[in-house]
């Protein structure tokens, strides 16, 4: 939707393995965000980026790292996946006027 693509859409991985999720946008937006969605918690910010190589932590950043080497790509890495990181992950871009557009999400299961 609106030029934002997340991959993969679904992933099952084992505890302790590294995992990288990708967010790709085609509209040259400066701000990009990674959120996780869990029942009873709504959406919580993991990390965000305000430009190439410019990133900052959100409220639940422990165990996650990000990279943005190009405007269009924002990568989220779980260095060593744990069961508590089983979640649905959403990437978002900030539009002119202030609102977000979200991707379709990645459902990650850590077994």
């Amino acid at each position, binding site marked *: *939707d609106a030029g934002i693509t997340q991959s993969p859409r679904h992933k099952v991985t084992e505890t302790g393995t590294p995992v990288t999720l990708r967010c790709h946008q085609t509209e040259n937006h400066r*701000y990009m*965000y990674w*959120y996780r969605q869990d029942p*009873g*918690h*709504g*959406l*919580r*910010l993991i990390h*965000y980026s*305000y430009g190439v190589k410019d990133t*900052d932590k*959100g409220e639940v950043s422990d165990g996650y790292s990000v990279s943005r080497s190009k405007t269009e790509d924002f990568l989220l890495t779980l260095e060593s996946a744990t069961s508590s990181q089983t979640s649905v992950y*959403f990437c*978002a871009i*900030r539009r002119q006027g*202030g*609102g*977000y*557009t*979200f*991707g*379709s*999400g990645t459902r990650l299961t850590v077994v």
Partner: protein
Amino acid sequence: QQQVKQSPQSLIVQKGGIPIINCAYENTAFDYFPWYQQFPGKGPALLIAIRPDVSEKKEGRFTISFNKSAKQFSLHIMDSQPGDSATYFCAASESNTGNQFYFGTGTSLTVIP
């Protein structure tokens, strides 16, 4: 701490009814209050948003009421339809801090035909 508190957690109404979802916040620096609608398997989609310089905003059947002194805002859905059945999230952000949004925990709305 939850920056934005949302209630109720779930809501069931008959077709044509007017569901109301409420949110409250503490940070007076927040200056943008959007509502998002999410269908199963999809990402949240912006529904309607308000800034604190107005007390009400309408877009089609959706209305936001905003009470700055009480630090509360609510979503009203007029003439609700079964197709409105979804999860609704309120959010708040402060424009000068990278536009991080703080989301409520969501309300699951079911509209019965």
